[in-house]
């Protein structure tokens, strides 16, 4: 499946409800069920910097997955999360 190549990489997982979770992809299956280790949720808001909430090891049901992106560590570590102001990603409608 097309998730091959993302294992053991740090990825950004966007969920159907708009939440953004960053973690290391340790496993997946055909239905795009995902296992992420060392994950943190990134909470975006328009009037405060990004807050990171540690979550630990997560198994996410495939049907909740919207998008998985490989994180470029160099760009990610150079960005100061506390200065980023943005509305959260909207939830999926008519999923």
């Amino acid at each position, binding site marked *: 499946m*097309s998730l091959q190549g993302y294992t053991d990489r740090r990825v950004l997982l*966007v969920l*159907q409800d708009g939440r953004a979770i960053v973690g290391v992809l340790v496993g997946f299956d055909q239905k795009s069920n995902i296992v992420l280790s060392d994950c943190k949720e990134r909470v975006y808001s328009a009037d405060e910097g990004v807050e990171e909430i540690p979550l630990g090891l997560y198994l996410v049901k495939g049907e909740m997955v*919207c998008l998985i992106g490989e994180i470029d560590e160099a*760009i990610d570590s150079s960005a100061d999360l506390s200065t980023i102001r943005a509305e959260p*990603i909207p939830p999926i409608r008519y999923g």
Partner: protein
Amino acid sequence: MLIFSVFKTLTDQTVTVELKNDLSITGVLKSVDQFLNIRLDNIKVADEGRHPHMMAVKNCFIRGSVVRYVQLPAEHVDTQLLEDATRRDAMNQVKR
């Protein structure tokens, strides 16, 4: 199955995928599977100022079920062939 084949012929072309959360992502189509899950390379999110969430993401996997539209490069699609093929496909499904 037919649309899956169409997407396969479009690999390595630049497409824009609009998601059901109104995110619009442009990138090079790397692969598609039977669920129409899409792999994009070299991505760019429309209106990056409003969507800095994917700043550090250069390639991504999009679940087929959250795709609303895919904008295709017209010069790489034979519309007449596609029209014939889809109608033939639809006819066959009625027969079955």
